């Protein structure tokens, strides 16, 4: 499950990158900016899930309450 979290993020990143270059070429610069921000926020959700899982595990193992 964790590996496909990483690969999903890579897919989103590359897709957003291509979309942004496409939008820039067709002259819609502001939409490209919006798509970049949307991509970053979307990736942030998955990253935060992964990090919260990591932190709960570390807290439980090392008794860091």
């Amino acid at each position, binding site marked *: 499950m*964790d*590996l496909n*979290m*990483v690969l999903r*993020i*890579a897919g*989103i*990143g*590359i897709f*957003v*990158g*291509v979309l*942004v*270059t496409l939008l820039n070429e067709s002259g819609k610069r502001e939409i490209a900016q919006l798509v*970049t921000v949307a*991509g*970053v926020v979307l*990736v*942030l959700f*998955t*990253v935060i899930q*992964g*990090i919260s*899982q*990591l*932190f709960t*595990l*570390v*807290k439980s*193992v*090392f*008794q*860091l309450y």
Partner: protein
Amino acid sequence: MEIWQIVGLALIVTIIGVVLRKIQPEIAVQLSILAGAVIFLLMFGKIKVIVDLLQNLADQANISSYYLIIVLKIVGISYLAEFGAQICRDAGEGALATKVELAAKIGVLVLAIPIIVAILESLVRLIP
């Protein structure tokens, strides 16, 4: 989780990170953060075995688990701080990384105070 799977994952993520760094640098940083977290999660089973072994040994040697818990906390704090500081440094935030390390040092020092006091007391008792 075997070492070759982890090295494979790390290499794949590095290559994707290089590609992503050109098009979308902010997502590349998040990718490396998540890859670090995933590698720790994959290794978690083995870490649990080590920690349980330490606890068993401490119980057999009837050392009070109070000191072992402090050692485990210190290891946990230093691991997390190193994790965060290294990621901040990769993203170019050297100053932030040093602040995180400073906070971790203070945290570890605060945790170590009871042990230092215990040692000093036993020393004073030894000297007639």
